[in-house]
């Protein structure tokens, strides 16, 4: 008996040792395999921290909880054939004409809008400028074509699929189709809207007239765009009085006392084209105007309410669109007889991603159940809308398109001369962040379908597998205008609403080899962003070498005269940050952007609360122990902190009215440059690009006007779902 026990004990010991060794080995393998799978994933998302693991897990779980279907847009069969639309400057309204209007523009009481209840806080003469140049922009319902190419309807597997038309006809899989026009709400009926070339010292007054009740082409309005057809236009990010700012904090309390101006109403926005504080160092170079209607900004912008507003600085010829003067930035100016001017070789590029209806995806979101679009009878499929723009107001994962457009055209061609160009980049997408590179490709674009991609990998539709960087960008300006010094960049990120301006020299490649006529270059997006949360791959956090989406084909043409220069010295002086700024930090105002607290309409919050347009927000408690209201005395300067409250999202946080200087990111001083991720932090900006979990200190002024303004996330799905706060300048 005793022998048996000993044998048993011996046997047990061996078995136990074996089990222990096996468990230890399994743990080692699991940890090793887990780390090799998880760590790179965390790194490429910027979540490589002890808290990032939880955020990544939450993202994955949220992805499983909130399943959302989006259509796969039909494949554009002949990309890179349509020419890039290069906008011409809009002609102003002649004085004889606007003086004959029933309600003429002017500084008097009630002259600011059709309701007769607001006056302009400052008229142009108050800042020593002449009377404004007057423009009229009508918001109209029209049709828009993203491409002239034939298309092949495909499903998420990239296979040919059935398609439909407005007459109820179903076309079998494999039928090549022509896209129907998408219904847009456009300034003067176009997308993007007209471009106004403005100049400092020459104020502009734009009469925005809402004609969205008129539908002369009897177009189907589908199920997005503000349901009351109202609109509120914001010139992003001009230094304007609240009544001309187009923000809901003002509009809900004064003026229309509503979300926006409804059909039949008009409002005059006076853009003084005058820098903050009258300080030349505050001058900017590129604005854009877009809808800001409370709760429906995203749907109105996606519906087409976007326009361009480059602004030049004629003082001492510094940046007046004439490359022979001042900074000698590329541009050849032509003054038109109607008072406008155009600048050749200076091209705005508005990037916009769209998704087209496949007719088989159910339209369903919380706005339908609120009765906003009763005619659509959602939840429902809409085969009659096949090929038209598809929109979802409240996607839990954010909204990104799978077709990339530039100036309203998908995959266009830009024919350039052999010389330098000034390219003004604007991201007017709902949520997509881009990272651009200039690439050459010997084999040219291949459809993602032909390369075997499916699902989200089909986004962008085309790839250049053999694409190689061939040129660099010279960055000369950002949101806040001309940079102090030019920055040479291999690639750059463009977040929603941000502007970046570059000189590209099309005479030679980056290795010095001259270009020749007929050479082809692709402006390529290398940031993979499968949904509206954030990137899955980018240069900063681990690029996907196979993700090279050609957005625009650039064809080199004949040599042209070029008097422009690439700046090598100081271009601009920045408004100073006081030496004692650190003494202002303790008493700062703090605003944290948070993934919301409920699964319905209130998904996005700031400091734990919804946007309340009736009052200024309250700061989180600062290190001085105070929770002040978001109010500033006119003429004051302050340090604010903007935080990303986590949840695995990135946020482009926009602050109206004045540009700011970025002081620190996560406690590291960046205002003098040196941040590889955000090299243009050294300049002025109006939008804080908040990486996951990031905290940013900014310094800015509150000058010249009093009243109500807002700050908000420019991921428009976030903005429309309460990620905004009101702030106020007091007398």
């Amino acid at each position, binding site marked *: 008996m005793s022998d048996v026990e000993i044998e048993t004990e011996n046997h047990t010991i061996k078995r136990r040792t074996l089990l222990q060794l096996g468990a230890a080995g399994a743990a080692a393998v699991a940890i090793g395999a887990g780390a090799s799978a998880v760590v790179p994933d965390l790194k490429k998302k910027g979540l490589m921290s002890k808290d990032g693991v*939880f955020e990544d897990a939450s993202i994955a779980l949220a992805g499983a909880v909130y399943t959302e279907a989006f259509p796969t847009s039909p494949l554009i069969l002949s990309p890179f054939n349509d020419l890039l639309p290069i906008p011409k400057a809009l002609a102003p309204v002649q004085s004889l004409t606007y003086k004959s209007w029933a309600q003429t523009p002017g500084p008097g009481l009630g002259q600011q809008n059709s309701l007769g209840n607001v006056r302009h806080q400052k008229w142009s003469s108050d800042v020593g400028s002449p009377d404004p140049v007057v423009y009229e922009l009508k918001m109209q319902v029209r049709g828009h074509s993203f491409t002239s190419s034939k298309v092949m309807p495909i499903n998420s597997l990239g296979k040919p699929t059935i398609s439909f038309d407005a007459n109820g006809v179903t076309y079998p899989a494999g039928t090549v189709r022509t896209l129907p026009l998408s219904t847009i709400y456009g300034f003067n009926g176009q997308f993007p809207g007209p471009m106004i070339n403005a100049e400092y010292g020459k104020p502009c007054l734009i009469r925005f007239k809402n004609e969205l009740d008129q539908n002369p082409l009897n177009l189907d309005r589908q199920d997005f765009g503000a349901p009351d057809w109202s609109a509120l236009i914001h010139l992003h990010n001009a230094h304007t009085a609240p009544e001309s700012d187009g923000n809901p904090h003002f509009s809900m309390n004064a003026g229309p006392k509503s979300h926006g101006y409804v*059909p039949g109403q008009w409002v005059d926005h006076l853009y003084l084209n005058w820098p903050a504080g009258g300080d030349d160092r505050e001058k900017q170079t590129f604005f854009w105007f877009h809808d800001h209607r409370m709760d429906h900004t995203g749907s109105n912008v996606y519906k087409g309410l976007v326009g361009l507003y480059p602004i030049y600085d004629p003082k001492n010829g510094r940046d007046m669109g004439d490359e022979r003067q001042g900074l000698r930035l590329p541009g050849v100016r032509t003054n038109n007889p109607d008072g406008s001017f155009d600048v050749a070789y200076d091209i705005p590029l508005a990037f916009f991603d769209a998704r087209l209806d496949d007719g088989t995806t159910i339209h369903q979101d919380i706005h339908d159940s609120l009765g906003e679009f009763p005619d659509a009878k959602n939840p429902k499929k809409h085969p009659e809308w096949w090929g038209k723009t598809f929109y979802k107001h409240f996607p839990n994962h954010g909204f990104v398109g799978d077709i990339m457009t530039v100036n309203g055209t998908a995959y266009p061609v830009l024919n350039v001369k052999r010389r330098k160009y000034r390219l003004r980049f604007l991201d007017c997408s709902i949520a997509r962040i881009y990272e651009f590179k200039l690439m050459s490709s010997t084999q040219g674009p291949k459809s993602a379908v032909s390369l075997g991609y499916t699902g989200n990998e089909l986004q962008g539709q085309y790839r250049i597998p053999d694409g190689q960087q061939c040129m660099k960008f010279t960055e000369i300006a950002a949101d806040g205008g001309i940079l102090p010094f030019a920055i040479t960049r291999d690639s750059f990120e463009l977040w929603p609403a941000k502007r970046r301006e570059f000189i590209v020299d099309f005479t030679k490649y980056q290795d010095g080899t001259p270009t020749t006529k007929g050479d082809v270059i692709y402006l390529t997006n290398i940031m993979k962003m499968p949904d509206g949360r954030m990137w899955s791959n980018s240069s900063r956090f681990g690029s996907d070498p196979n993700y090279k989406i050609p957005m625009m084909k650039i064809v080199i043409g004949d040599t042209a005269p070029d008097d422009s220069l690439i700046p090598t010295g100081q271009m601009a002086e920045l408004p100073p940050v006081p030496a004692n700024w650190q003494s202002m930090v303790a008493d700062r105002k703090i605003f944290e952007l948070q993934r919301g607290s409920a699964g319905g309409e209130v998904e996005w919050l700031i400091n734990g609360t*919804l946007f309340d*347009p009736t009052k200024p927000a309250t700061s989180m408690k600062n290190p001085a122990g105070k929770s002040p209201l978001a109010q500033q005395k006119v003429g004051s300067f302050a340090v604010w902190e903007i935080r990303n409250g986590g949840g695995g999202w990135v946020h482009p946080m926009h602050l109206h009215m004045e540009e700011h200087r970025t002081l620190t990111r996560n406690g590291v001083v960046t205002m003098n440059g040196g941040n590889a991720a955000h090299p243009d932090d050294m300049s002025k900006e109006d939008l804080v690009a908040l990486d996951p979990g990031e905290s940013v200190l900014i310094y800015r002024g509150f000058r010249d006007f009093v009243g109500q303004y807002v700050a908000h996330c420019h991921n428009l799905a976030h903005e429309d779902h309460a990620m905004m706060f009101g702030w106020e300048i007091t007398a």
Partner: protein
Amino acid sequence: MSIRTSRDRVAGSLRNLQLSWTTVVLTAALAALASIFVMITLGGAVGAIERLTPPFQRWIRDSIIIFPVFVLAVVGAMYTAKKLVGDKKSWVKMAATLAIVIGFVTVVGILVNAASSGYDYYLQLKLLQVSEHLRHPTYLIQNGTPVLVGGKGACDMTCQAQHATLAGHMKGLGITSIVLLISNTALVLWAVAIRGGRLWMPAKQRRAAAVGTQRMPVLAEAVA
């Protein structure tokens, strides 16, 4: 007098269970860490923002707080297993015991998640109610004029948000319950394996216990 009797009774029962306390503690610790990780993940996906940050710190803190509950769950599972299948060495009995342990810690984990989710939902409802006055009426155009949409009786924005929030929690709980079952299975098996398959007190200690030697007086006292 009665307290002393209860304590003695519990201590005696624990002695009679003849557990391997190292295995119990290890299993409970792993299950607690897994459960709280899943709970925080669930909160991050569908929960209330008031409890979101900072997750790592919360993971450690809450795991320590919840640890005794999981110790009780493992002890309870072992007690149940002993009653149902006994503690004699056999692969079938060991598998049955492990299944019971996995079941107990998973149920406790699900309950912890459900409680956390319920509290999140309560916070979310409070926020929805507080923010109800910030809701803005929805208009649409009828016959050319803006008309207020909805009205009494209709499920308004707050009501819609409540439904959507609850649905998110229910679906999240369902998914995390499956995740917990899988992770607990792996963790319990691993914990027992790393202990060399030892679920119960070693034979040497059992014999000592049988002759009245108290092997775990401190733990027994602590649990009692």
